[in-house]
């Protein structure tokens, strides 16, 4: 299967100017590749830099060293050097991201949050909304919540809205940051099925999953991030 995502020599430090310019090394010389149809899981203790890697791939954190190569149709884009415009284009068409926590937008309903990626891709509003409702139903989000902004939802409900939003569109690359952390067994099983469907459709998935059971059912490979711990390389 073709490679969709490839990191070469990716390092990340945070320079904390408010702490006298202290340098916090996070990861060093990360090498990894994810092929279409594959689900790769990042492993390693908390604070090792797993979320930071996903955020760099999504362009949310800067990548000042190394390359983050994304196959986008018939071209390859390096996120590390891409312009904001190019990153926005990747987010619209190519990279989906289920963040660890949902960022609720005042006054925007769960239904609309989930439908948004489809609408942005030009799907008719009614169609997008009905697919959003199907997705919310599948993730067992109570129908009475669909029309409400998720700011007041429980952690698990917000997480499921976030998952629905991430899985609704057919992104060729999907990043998952602990999507099952606050879910019960039934909903974890739904996520496992969703991931399997994505893999079957040829998406490349890169995730962080602490739940051993879920991990076993969906991961093709686990990459131990200890190998890229910044202190070791320094």
């Amino acid at each position, binding site marked *: 299967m073709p490679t969709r995502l490839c990191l070469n020599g990716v390092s990340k430090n945070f320079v904390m100017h408010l702490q006298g310019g202290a340098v916090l090394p996070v990861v060093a010389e990360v090498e990894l590749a994810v092929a279409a149809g594959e689900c790769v899981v990042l492993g390693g203790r908390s604070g090792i830099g797993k979320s930071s890697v996903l955020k760099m791939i999504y362009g949310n954190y800067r990548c000042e060293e190394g390359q983050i190569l994304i196959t986008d149709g018939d071209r390859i884009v390096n996120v590390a050097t891409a312009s904001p415009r190019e990153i926005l284009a990747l987010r619209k068409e190519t990279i989906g991201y289920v963040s660890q926590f949902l960022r609720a*937008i*005042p006054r925007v309903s769960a239904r609309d949050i989930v439908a948004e990626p489809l609408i942005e891709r030009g799907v008719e509003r009614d169609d997008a909304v009905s697919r959003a409702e199907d997705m919310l139903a599948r993730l067992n989000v109570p129908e009475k919540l669909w029309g409400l902004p998720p700011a007041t939802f429980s952690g698990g409900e917000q997480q499921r809205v976030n998952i629905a939003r991430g899985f609704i569109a057919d992104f060729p690359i999907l990043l998952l940051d602990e999507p099952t952390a606050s879910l019960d067994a039934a909903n974890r099983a739904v996520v496992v099925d969703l991931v399997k469907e994505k893999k079957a459709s040829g998406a490349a998935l890169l995730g962080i999953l602490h739940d051993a059971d879920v991990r076993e059912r969906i991961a093709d490979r686990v990459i131990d991030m200890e190998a890229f711990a910044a202190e070791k390389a320094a």
Partner: protein
Amino acid sequence: MNLPVFDDGAPLLRASGVTRYYGTRIGCTDVSFELWPGEVLAVVGESGSGKTTLLNCLSTRLVPTSGVVEYRMRDGAMRDLFQLNEAERRLLMRTDWGFVHQNPADGLRMTVSAGANVGERLMAVGARNYGAIRGEAESWLDKVEIDTGRIDDDPRGFSGGMRQRLQIARNLVTGPRLIFMDEPTGGLDVSVQARLLDLLRQLVGEFGLSAVVVTHDLAVARLLSHRMIVMRGGNVIETGLTDQVLDDPRAPYTQLLVSSILQV
């Protein structure tokens, strides 16, 4: 924020080395960027950092001391805004652009009705049919969530939030491609701000508008913009994708700014 509608043609607006002095005092210095169709750019910074000066230079309300501002006209030609003649510039301001002031009274005519405030802009671009103008005004009042029963009232009796929504309707009715906004939520209560922000977010997305939004409020920038310029003392400190600048700020000043707020 919604992702922009992509148009691979060319930028809509280009600033190159835009500098404005007030005598010897710096307003803004050496600001360069491109704004693409469908993109919302936030200009953030503390009071006195040069945001309004920059916005006014971009929108030709102020003449830069040096630097160039170019705009892609509807015929596709990129034109230096300060080389346009007065008639061309006026047409641009009336049709292709909107300007939303912090204080609605600066952008509205307070002594004519809400309907006339909206209808006037249409008449300025040649609309003549009274029924059609009124119909359009009604539909815009509805879009900005003003009860159409208030169409004949003048905005002096409106709340701050309503006035601001009316100002937005007045600006959008001519189908502009570019909106300049100076602290659009500045004078409003927090709950009223949320409603206005949501409305702006929707309208910008629905019409694929480009916008330059000046704000000192990073939460407003987070919600509305794709890209950000951070200013201080008239200088550009940092630029980039909005969530990148807010979540992984690089410049010492930006780190200070981001750490000073509760959570955005």
